[in-house]
Every structure is written in structure tokens, then in C-alpha cells.
């Protein structure tokens, strides 16, 4: 093990060697020396990412029994199972940094750790499930593709796996939107309503403007973050607007306009008060989501206890037979 670094000069040398490695695009692996700030930032970001995957199952879970066909139920179940899997990849990657699974759950359940605010919005009609796949997973993919090149090996590898699986999520969502948009007048209105409600929260998923983003500079230097919030958001908008046009749906932003010179879209402004409010815990579903998570964890306790007791019993029985 590393002995506690008491010498400042030694610490500076270690820091420099670390930064040189990062600059050379070498990956940092779990047992390598890393600055405490790097470790803390990654633990925060990765655990919150994991929490987002897990809480992200809840808005869609509401629709499992009400999905309109057996096919849609099967698809939705598979997608939700993937989200759970993504949470598990990320939790296990975060554990390599020295935080335990229980600590992470504790932080989520006490509200100490955040998860993506998007999941504090309700899913009111079936088209919401389509809009989530198309927009929320679409925004998440845009973010996660950039994270595949993160300097921390286990995080980057988990992201590669997640990105491979997310593509299906976005496509199934867009297909739901296609069917709704081509359906009856009422169905098309539902699709438009879902787009109206999910568009701005999806843009908020990329976080504050670069000028307001507190950790960005250091995280870019450490290559935890590879692309800025505003750049990713713009990338998402440019990719998504034509998709909305194909559906013949209207994006709820009257300032949205193609900018020939920039070769990308100009658009309005996010309601940052709403963003701050939802992050602070006052969104429509914050309390409900967290309570559901706590209940699920507490409700599963007897299963974990029973599994451990069974493992213990079998171990004892095997030892007896061997004796």
C-alpha cells in the first residue's frame, strides 16, 4: 500500500506524474496513485450517474402494466432491465475507488447524493414513454459518448458498454413517437404534449452553462470531462430538431432557428429557476421517487438476509460433511 504522503514535494511530484499520464491519454486504473480531488470527483459523478440509472427505472416502471401491447410491455421491461444493469456497472466501477455499495445507497436514500433531475418529472401519458426514450436517452447518449474517453479506466469501460445498449432505448422511444404522430388526431396531440413537457428538462440534463459550471475547468484538465456542457447540449439540439421535423411535431421554443453561418441551431433559454428548484428537491416527483427507492431497499432486506443465511447454512453443512 501507499504510505501516507507526508512530504509536500513528494505529493507535488506524484501530482505532476499523474497529470503527465493523463495528458498522454494513458488511463488511470483503480490502484494507481491519484489526487484525492480526482477520486472524490469521480466518486461523486459515478455514484450520481449510477443513482440516475436506478431512479430512471421508476418513471417508466409506472407504465409497465399499462403499455398498449404485449410487444411494448416486453420492450419496456427490457429497457428498464438495462437501466438497472447500467446502474450496476456504474456502482461496481465506483466501488473500485474505495466507496462501498452501502455507502452509496445511504447517500442516495438520505438525499445527500443527487441523481439526474429529469426523473423528478411525471410520466402522464403513454407518449411520455416514447419521449423519454427519444429525448432523455438521446441526451444521455450524447453525454455518455463523451464519457467513453474519460481518463478513469473503469468508468470509460462501463460507458462503452452502456452506450452500446442505449441505442436501442432511443430507437424504441422514437418508434413510439412515430406511431403516435402518425395515429389519430388525439394520439398526435398526446405526442406533441409529451414533447412540450420533456424538451426543456431534456436540455437541462446537460447541466449549467459553461460560464456557470463550477467544476468544469479542473475536470477538463483531469479529462474526467471531455466536452463542455454547452457544446454537448448544442450537439443534441442539432441532432434532434430534424428528428422532430420528421415526426411533424413542433419543438416548444419560438426562438429555435437554423443559423446558416454557424451551421447549427439558435435557440431560446432554459428556465434556470425551474432547474435549480428541481435540483433542490422541489420537483413534482422528488419525494415520491426517493420514497419508492427507500421502500424498495427496505423491502428487499429480508431477501438479502435470507440469501446470506442460506449461504452460511450451506457452508456449515459442507464443512460438517468434510469433517
Amino acid at each position: 500500500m501507499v504510505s501516507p504522503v507526508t512530504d509536500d514535494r513528494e505529493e507535488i511530484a506524484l501530482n505532476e506524474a499523474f497529470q503527465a499520464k493523463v495528458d498522454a491519454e494513458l488511463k488511470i486504473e483503480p490502484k494507481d496513485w491519484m489526487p484525492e480531488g480526482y477520486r472524490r470527483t469521480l466518486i461523486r459523478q459515478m455514484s450520481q450517474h449510477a443513482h440516475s440509472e436506478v431512479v430512471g427505472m421508476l418513471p417508466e416502471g409506472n407504465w409497465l402494466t399499462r403499455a398498449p401491447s404485449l410487444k411494448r410491455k416486453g420492450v419496456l421491461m427490457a429497457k428498464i432491465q438495462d437501466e438497472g444493469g447500467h446502474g450496476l456497472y456504474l456502482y461496481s466501477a465506483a466501488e473500485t475507488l474505495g466507496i462501498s455499495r452501502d455507502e452509496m445507497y445511504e447517500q442516495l436514500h438520505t438525499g445527500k447524493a443527487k441523481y439526474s433531475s429529469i426523473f423528478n418529472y411525471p410520466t402522464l401519458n403513454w407518449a411520455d414513454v416514447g419521449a423519454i426514450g427519444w429525448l432523455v436517452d438521446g441526451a444521455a447518449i450524447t453525454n455518455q459518448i463523451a464519457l467513453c474517453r474519460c481518463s478513469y479506466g473503469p468508468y470509460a469501460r462501463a460507458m462503452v458498454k452502456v452506450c452500446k445498449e442505449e441505442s436501442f432505448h432511443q430507437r424504441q422511444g422514437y418508434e413510439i413517437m412515430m406511431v403516435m404522430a402518425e395515429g389519430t388526431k388525439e394520439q398526435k396531440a398526446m405526442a406533441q404534449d409529451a414533447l412540450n413537457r420533456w424538451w426543456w428538462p431534456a436540455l437541462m440534463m446537460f447541466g449549467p452553462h459553461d460560464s456557470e459550471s463550477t467544476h468544469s475547468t479542473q475536470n477538463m484538465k483531469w479529462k474526467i470531462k471531455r466536452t463542455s456542457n454547452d457544446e454537448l447540449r448544442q450537439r443534441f439540439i442539432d441532432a434532434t430538431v430534424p428528428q422532430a421535423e420528421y415526426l411533424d411535431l413542433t419543438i416548444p421554443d419560438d426562438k429555435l432557428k437554423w443559423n446558416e453561418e454557424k451551421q447549427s441551431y439558435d435557440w431560446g433559454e432554459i428556465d434556470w429557476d425551474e432547474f435549480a428548484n428541481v435540483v433542490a428537491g422541489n420537483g413534482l416527483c422528488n419525494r415520491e421517487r426517493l420514497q419508492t427507492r427507500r421502500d424498495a431497499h427496505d423491502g428487499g432486506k429480508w431477501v438479502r438476509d435470507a440469501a446470506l443465511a442460506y449461504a452460511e447454512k450451506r457452508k456449515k453443512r459442507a464443512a460438517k460433511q468434510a469433517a
Partner: protein
Amino acid sequence: MSNTASELPLYEVFIRSKNGLHHKHVGSLHASDDEMALTNARDVYTRRSEGVSIWVVKTDNVVASQPEDKASFYDPNDDKMYRHPTFYNIPDEVGHM
């Protein structure tokens, strides 16, 4: 830092994606025993036929080298250039060897 007293044990998961290839580390998971570790590994890491064979190993049983020992640990082999084919001068007329 960690309080893992009540946690299910941690396992490392290795998957052979197809015959002819090595098992490769893919991540870890928690399970109460070996059997649960194997079925959980199937559910978590092979939802899209990513594997034909899975190994699970309790993390406690993995013995690993330390990155900070890298120099002294690998040094002894670094100065034995005679292990490499390019160490030997063979005339071109001998042909490919």
C-alpha cells in the same frame, strides 16, 4: 472509509465472448454465494449473448500486484534483451528466420 459489514460479498466477473478467446474481466457484482454470483453475472453482463462462458471469483481471493511496485517487480526482465529475436544478427542471405 468503507463499512461493508452487511453487504453481500463482492465477486469479479470474467466472460469468454466466444470459443477461441480468453475470458476477460468485465466488472464486479455482489452476491450471497457462488451460485447467485453466476446467475447474477448472467443477468447483468450477458443480456445480449455477450458470452459463452462465465467465471466468477470472490474479490477477496484475487491476488494482485501493486502499481507502485512496478519498477522493482518488472525490472529483472527489462535488461535481458537476448530474449528478443532482434538481439541476434543473422545475415540477410540466410533468408527469413
